[in-house]
C-alpha cells in the first residue's frame, strides 16, 4: 500500500478490480492542511481513460511492476522507442507518456515500466537539467528569486523561473511537479 500523494505518473494502482496506469497526478491542498490528488489514469484491461480524485493520505494498492533501465531513442509515431544496454527496443504509446514528454531528449536515461510483459509507461529521474531556449530578459536588480517569469526549454515546455534566469542558462527541474529547482552553474 502507498499513500495517494506518493503515487507517480507511470505507477499502476488498483481501482476496484481494474489495474490503472497513472497518466497524470495533480496535488492540491484542500483545507485545514488536508489535500487531494486528482489522477488521470488508463485501464490496463479495457484501455479506457478516466479521472479520479483521492485524499492525499488515502491508501491505494500499488501493483508491483517490472522495470528496466533504458534511454530514450526515437519517436516512431505514435510510439516512443526506448533502448536498454543490450540494444533491446521497447515501445511506449504516446498517450501513456504523460508529463515525461515535457522533458524528453535523445539519450535521456529513464525506466520503462512493464505490466504482464507489456511496456506501459516511463518513469523519469526526479530531476532533469535543461537549457532555457527562450525567456524575457532578466530584470536588473531583482535577484531575490521570488519574482518569476515564464521560460521555455528545448522541448517547448514552459515553466516559471526566477527573474534572474536568462536564455542559455541550465536549470534543474523537478519532474514530479514541473517546477524550477535551481540554476545550474
Amino acid at each position, binding site marked *: 500500500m502507498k499513500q495517494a500523494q506518493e503515487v507517480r505518473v507511470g505507477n499502476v494502482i488498483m*481501482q476496484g478490480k481494474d489495474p490503472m496506469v497513472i497518466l497524470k497526478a495533480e496535488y*492540491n*491542498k484542500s483545507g*485545514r*492542511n488536508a489535500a487531494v490528488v486528482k489522477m488521470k489514469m488508463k485501464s490496463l484491461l479495457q484501455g479506457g481513460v478516466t479521472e479520479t480524485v483521492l485524499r492525499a493520505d488515502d491508501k491505494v*494498492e500499488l501493483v508491483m511492476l517490472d522495470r528496466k533501465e533504458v534511454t530514450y531513442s526515437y519517436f516512431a509515431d505514435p510510439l516512443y522507442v526506448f533502448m536498454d544496454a543490450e540494444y533491446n527496443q521497447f515501445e511506449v504509446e504516446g498517450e501513456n507518456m504523460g508529463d515525461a514528454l515535457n522533458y524528453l531528449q535523445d539519450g535521456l536515461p529513464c525506466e520503462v515500466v512493464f505490466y504482464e510483459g507489456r511496456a506501459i509507461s516511463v518513469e523519469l529521474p526526479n530531476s532533469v537539467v535543461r537549457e532555457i531556449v527562450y525567456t524575457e530578459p532578466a530584470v536588473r536588480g531583482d535577484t531575490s528569486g521570488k519574482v518569476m517569469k515564464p521560460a521555455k526549454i528545448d522541448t517547448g515546455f514552459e515553466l516559471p523561473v526566477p527573474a534572474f534566469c536568462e536564455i542559455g542558462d541550465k536549470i534543474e527541474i523537478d519532474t514530479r511537479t514541473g517546477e524550477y529547482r535551481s540554476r545550474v552553474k
Partner: protein
Amino acid sequence: MTPRWDIFCKVVDNLGDIGVCWRLARLLHDEHGLAVRLWVDDLAAHQRICPGVVICDSQVVSGIEVRHWPDDFSMATAGQVAEVVIDAFGCGLPAAYLAAMPADAVWVNLEYLSAEPWVAACHGLHSRLPDCAAPRRFFFPGFTPHTGGLMREHDLVARRQRFEDAGAASAFLATLGVPADARLKVLLFCYPSVCLPTLIEAMDEGPAPVLLLIPEGAVAQSVLAQLAAKPRRGFVEARAIPFVPQESFDELLWSMDVNIVRGEDSFVRAQWAAKPFVWHIYPQEGGAHLAKLEAFMARYTAASDPQSNLKPWSDFNLAWNEGTLTAAHWHALKAALPALSHHAQDWATRLSTLPELTSALVQFCAKPV
C-alpha cells in the same frame, strides 16, 4: 420510503466542522424532507451553536437524529448503514461502518470550500478504496456553476430583506444587551491574530466611534484586556457577547456594518448577509491558505463594478491574514465602506443565481456512479 442520510462529523477544532454539518443536516431535513442522522464526536461543540443539544448518546433535535460518535463505534448500536453517507471534510468513517457499507451505498466526501480553479475539475469525481465495496464520490462546494455551490435556505434572502425593511437590528441587538446607536458596528469573529492590537489601536484613532462585538472566547478576552490596559481616546468600545445559536447568527451579521468572520460557515453566511466583510481564513502549513484567499479575492473583486475601488478590501484581507496589518489598512477599509456595501449586495445577488448546495447534493446522490 424516505431515504436515510448519515452525516459523520469530527470536530477537529473550533466550530467550523459542526457549523457546516449542522446546517447541512437542517437543510436536508427541513427543505428536502430527508431522514437525517448526524454523528458528532464532540457534542459540547455542537451545543455551543445549538443549545437544544444535550450530552447523551442519542437524541432528536429539530427533527434530526443526533448521535454521539464514540471511539468504540459499533454497528450493533448504530443499526443499518444509511442509503447516503456523508463523510464531512473527509473525516473518515468508522471502520465498522465502512466494512458494512454495501457496494450500492452512496458515499460522499463533502470537501472544503475553495474558490481555486482546480476545484471544478475535481468536483463530482469518484475513487475506490481497497477497504470498501462502495465508490466514494467527491463533492466540492464552490462559487461557480461547475461546483456544488453554497448552502442557502430557500427563504434566506427574503428573511434578510424583511429584517432590514423592518429595521429589526435594534431589537435583535437588544436581546444581546447591545445598544443600537449610530456607532459603526463591527463583529469580530476571528481566530487569535497578531493583528488584533493594531486593529484596536487603529479603531481607537477615530474619528468615527466603533462598537466592536466579539463572541466570548480567547479573542474577546485579549481585546478586552488590551483596552483595559491603558487609557484610550474612547473611539472604540468592545463587548463580549454570548455565542448565538446558528439560527440567529444571520441576524447578528445583518445587524452589523462590518463582519470580520472566519473559517467556512460564517464566511459563507457573511456573504449572504450582503454586508462588507473580512475573511480570516484558517491558517495552513506553507501558506496554502493565502493562495485560497487570493483565489477568493480574485473572484470577489472581478465581479465588481469597474468604478468601485475594492483595493482597500483586498489589502486589508491580505494584511490581516499575513499578519502585516497597519492602521492605514483599517482607515482605508473604513473609507471604502460605501463601495463595499454596494458590492456586497451585488455579490450576494450573484451568488443566489448559483446552485444551492443541498439541492445539488441531493441530485448528485441520485445519479449512479
